[in-house]
């Protein structure tokens, strides 16, 4: 599959992702950045659906848009006075950072193109993914990936308790 024949939906989602990601890193008002982040996460969920990962798209919307982005907005509202935010939001590294990122993108693009032409285009499979995606994922989580699943549960519990301990008032 070459660059040209991935379909109109992919291009719409790509433009949405890149424009909203640029807004996330460049807007002055941090609250508007959070709203652009939500748009970006939705578009990434659309990309997951295009790639046949329906469960991952649903989890993306539930966890990222429903939990992480809302948490960000809570934190913004608790920590800054929104109306007075016209000060510059980038530090003095902006120009150097831009150069580094453009360089990174160009090098990465050349490497991807060479590797794709050399190796991946021969490996590329034409088979569709099995349609009972979610069934297979559930079976994996209960058998082959049961240990990582439990470890991740402990990690979430630790993060939750840690956040409560950190954010609690000292004299309560």
């Amino acid at each position, binding site marked *: 599959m*070459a*660059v040209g024949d*991935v379909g109109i939906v*992919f291009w719409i989602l*790509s433009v949405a*992702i*890149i424009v909203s*990601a640029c807004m*996330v*890193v460049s807007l002055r008002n*941090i609250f508007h*950045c959070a709203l652009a*982040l939500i748009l*970006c996460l939705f578009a*990434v969920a659309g990309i997951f659906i295009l*790639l*046949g*990962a329906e*469960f*991952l798209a649903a989890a993306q919307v539930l966890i*990222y848009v429903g*939990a*992480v982005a809302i*948490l*960000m907005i809570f*934190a913004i509202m*608790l*920590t800054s006075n929104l109306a007075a935010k016209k000060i510059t*939001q*980038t*530090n003095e*590294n902006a120009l150097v950072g*831009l150069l*580094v*990122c453009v360089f990174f*993108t160009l090098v*990465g693009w050349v490497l*991807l*193109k060479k590797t*794709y032409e050399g190796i*991946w285009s021969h*490996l*590329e*499979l034409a088979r569709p993914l099995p349609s009972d*995606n979610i069934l*297979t*994922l559930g079976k994996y*989580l209960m058998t082959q990936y049961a240990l*990582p699943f439990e470890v*991740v549960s402990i*990690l*979430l519990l*630790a*993060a*939750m308790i*840690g*956040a*409560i301990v*950190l*954010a609690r008032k000292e004299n309560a």
Partner: protein
Amino acid sequence: MLAYLVLALVLFSIGLFGVLTRRNTIGILMSLELMFNAVNINFVVFNKFVATSALVGQMFAIFIVVVAAAEAVAGLAIVLLLYRNWQGIDTDNDSVMKW
């Protein structure tokens, strides 16, 4: 396949730019989420096009989403604590902690 990979590369670079240049700590955390999403796109693309065994890439992407949520929770708790101690969350102030 190449188009998806280039999209993930560009998204990762934008997130990297945000991490390098943001002054607000919450802005840095949001840019980190962009980078996590780029990595997830890569996992799912390789799972679809050059998978060695079915659905391993999606499984890794799910675990990354969960770990990113835990990271956001802990990071934002630290941000609240910084704000309470210094009445601001700019990284210029936070570098006081370096020593």
